[in-house]
């Protein structure tokens, strides 16, 4: 058992990092756990230590600031640390994989700030090397200062597609085209929310202006329908979309060696799900979200949630919700933080409204599912196609759990993180259910694959607590 803490926080992004700082300011003993080498999460990911200097960006500045504040605080930050199992007795017990071995940590309160992952709608050829996620591409920029290829097609929803395209240009790559399912009208509808955030609006306008000046074609209300190439991307095919995002018949082919593809972010809910936090479906927050109050409080005693893992509201909202959650925990442990919480809550509400409007741009429409063809692989780990899943459903499997049991979709190393949104979408198509009726599959530990010897730990056979044998 390695030390007892007041608070353990899983995830050192904007939400978890600020929750840690707020709790530590009140003298609480805080353990901050993150699998990355440095704090910052995805949005404020640190550059690789192999890169000595890099031009400052808005994200790198915010990340450096968080990392400096954490370094100067009393927070114990374990980097490269993966929490693989959590349980609750009097307090919380966490099994943490770090450097090939597992340690147990305990804490009175637990915060899950597990962030988001991205959804990629499977299209023919999406598993070709050279295709990466839109959000995945940002990791490449921030950590390695590298563009994904020489000539890249960037396709996706919301603001991320423009950010990624402009970053590729900044890093010296060529953007062959920007393709987005959103219409200009979708952005016009989001303008009221944008007007409250003039700085962000200006930044977005700058990305688009840069692309226009460089002559990069922007295809509104289009989507990538296929990827050519065997061992590497050679060309990308795309088509105009109808209002509900059904691809129309005409196709355009564009030469490229790489493709960034994404359809918005979804909350990483598995940890909360395993601990019994009830889920609700809210498309404006990225789909299935664990139920939590703005100050992080959940139905599970001593468990708090903040940041994108509790609903996609973006980095700024995550900062304030993190602070608010840290302050709430301090209050729950006897400190008066009500004034500070009031101001954090107001800042959170403002940022959350904007984040929600941005998330809304990525809400999948019915036609999106038609981008996947019968022979398109949906479950990458097990190589299961859309047709296989469709057949299982028409034979009576009406839930994500039933499809998982019958076909193994979601039983591979990713644990269903890549395929379950698409599986649920196919269930909806085939059974006519609404996506809010198709619950995600039961989440199973460990939270990440864990080497068996590390999970078992050092042991003496004769000291194993072997119970008495079964009745004869």
């Amino acid at each position, binding site marked *: 058992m390695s030390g007892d803490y007041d608070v353990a926080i899983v995830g050192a992004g904007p939400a978890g990092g600020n929750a840690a700082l707020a709790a530590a300011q009140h003298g609480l003993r805080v353990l901050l756990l993150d699998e990355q080498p440095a704090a910052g999460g995805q949005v404020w990911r640190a550059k690789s230590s192999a890169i000595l200097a890099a031009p400052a960006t808005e994200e790198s500045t915010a990340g450096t600031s968080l990392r400096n504040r954490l370094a100067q605080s009393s927070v114990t930050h374990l980097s490269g640390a993966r929490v693989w199992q959590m349980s609750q007795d009097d307090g919380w017990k966490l099994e943490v994989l770090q450097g090939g071995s597992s340690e147990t940590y305990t804490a009175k309160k637990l915060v899950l700030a597990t962030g988001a992952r991205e959804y990629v709608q499977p299209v023919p050829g999406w598993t070709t090397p050279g295709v990466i996620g839109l959000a995945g591409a940002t990791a490449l920029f921030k950590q390695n200062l590298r563009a994904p290829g020489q000539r890249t097609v960037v396709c996706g929803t919301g603001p991320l597609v423009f950010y990624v395209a402009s970053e590729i240009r900044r890093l010296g790559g060529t953007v062959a085209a920007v393709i987005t399912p959103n219409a200009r009208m979708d952005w016009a509808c989001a303008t009221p929310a944008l007007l409250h955030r003039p700085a962000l609006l200006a930044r977005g306008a700058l990305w688009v202006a840069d692309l226009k000046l460089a002559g990069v074609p922007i295809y509104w209300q289009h989507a990538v329908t296929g990827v050519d190439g065997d061992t590497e991307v050679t060309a990308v095919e795309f088509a105009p979309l109808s209002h509900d995002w059904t691809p129309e018949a005409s196709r355009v082919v564009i030469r490229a060696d790489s493709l960034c593809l994404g359809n918005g972010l979804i909350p990483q809910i598995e940890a909360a799900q395993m601990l019994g936090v009830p889920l609700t479906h809210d498309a404006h927050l990225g789909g299935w979200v664990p139920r939590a109050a703005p100050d992080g409080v959940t139905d599970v005693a001593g468990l708090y949630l903040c940041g994108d893992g509790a609903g996609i509201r973006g980095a700024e909202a995550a900062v304030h919700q993190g602070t608010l959650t840290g302050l709430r925990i301090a209050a729950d442990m006897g400190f008066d933080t009500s004034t500070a919480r009031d101001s954090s809550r107001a800042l959170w509400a403002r940022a959350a409204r904007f984040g929600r409007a941005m998330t809304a741009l990525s809400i999948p429409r019915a036609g999106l599912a038609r981008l996947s063809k019968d022979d398109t692989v949906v479950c990458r780990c097990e190589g299961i196609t859309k047709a296989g899943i469709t057949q299982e459903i028409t*034979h*009576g499997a009406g839930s994500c*759990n039933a499809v998982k049991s*019958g076909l193994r979709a979601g039983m591979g190393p990713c644990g269903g993180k890549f395929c379950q949104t698409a599986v649920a979408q196919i269930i909806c198509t085939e059974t006519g259910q609404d996506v809010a009726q198709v619950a995600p599959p039961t989440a199973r530990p460990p939270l990440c694959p864990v080497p068996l010897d590390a999970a078992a730990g050092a042991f003496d056979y004769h000291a194993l607590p*072997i*119970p008495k*044998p079964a009745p004869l």
Partner: protein
Amino acid sequence: MSYDIAIIGGGIMGCATALRLAEGGMHPIVLDQGDLGQGASGVNAGTLSLQIKRVQLMPYALRGHDLWAQMGDAVGFHKSGGYTLAFNAREAELLTERQTLKAEAGAPIEFVSNAQLRRAAPNLTQNVVAASYCAEDGYANSSLTGQYYRGRLQDAGIAYRTHSPVTAIDKTTAFELATPQGTVRAKRLLLAAGAWLKPVAAMLGVDLPVQARVNTVSVTERMPPLMSSVIGHATGLLTMKQKANGTVLIGGGWQGRGTPQDGRGTVASDTLRPNLALAQYAVPSLGSARVLRSWTGFEANVPDFYPLAGALPHVAGAYVLGCVRGGYTIGPYISRLMGDFILGQEPELPLFDPGRAYTKEPT
């Protein structure tokens, strides 16, 4: 519409009994609170081993094995043979005593030398003191239970409803079962709700002394070939097999937490860790495999650890089937017996009276 019999529970017991009853001319309906085969039937480790069956249940297990072999590929059946290992003198004594009794009960179990064992299973630890082997042992893929029985029910034209928990039972001339999808009427009733038997029987005012064990199972990523037979431990606290796809499934009945009434069990690291340690001790090269998933399943039992299989006490027309130790192996067979009993025929082997006193061995 009224059915001849309503069956609460769409696991192996409920579905296989429904199939037998339909063969006998009855019109059953199967109701499950979730999907078919998602309880113990669908989450157990899938071991089909005579070496871990109770002596008194051996005749049932032997016939159960035959039925699994007939189901074949559709349920992922493999007759791989199985070794049971003892790592010290105390375990060797236990192994000898127990496996001798099981062999006498009809299981083709033999004791094997270390040389034989190493030839057959070279990746096993060198620390084996004694081992037994049963060529009849093997496994099936429990994940396929729901898919398999769903197809069988459909082919037989048997009605079933999933996500249909029974919330109240009214007994007048017939049984009236309240479900979120409406009332189901049936002349007879079979309770086959596994770990949920106690609350279901309570709706009829019957107190069944059912408790649930919370068994833990884990699976690794795909590995190169490490073992070709089922591996067990003298105490029964390890079962392990490598599937055709290379994944290794590790069970043995280590206890997680939770109750069926809470609706879910959770894996406990303080029992998961020794379970994995025991697996690694038996096959040291397993240490480098990554564990992808661990889960729990509720295994129902009564105090004497023998089945409930027969008429439900005090309620005419109601029956109960469950709490079978080794229920995955024995389920398809004992369900046939149950079906025959409900059809008014003499079962091939005796059932287990749910009205018995649970303090002594059944006769």
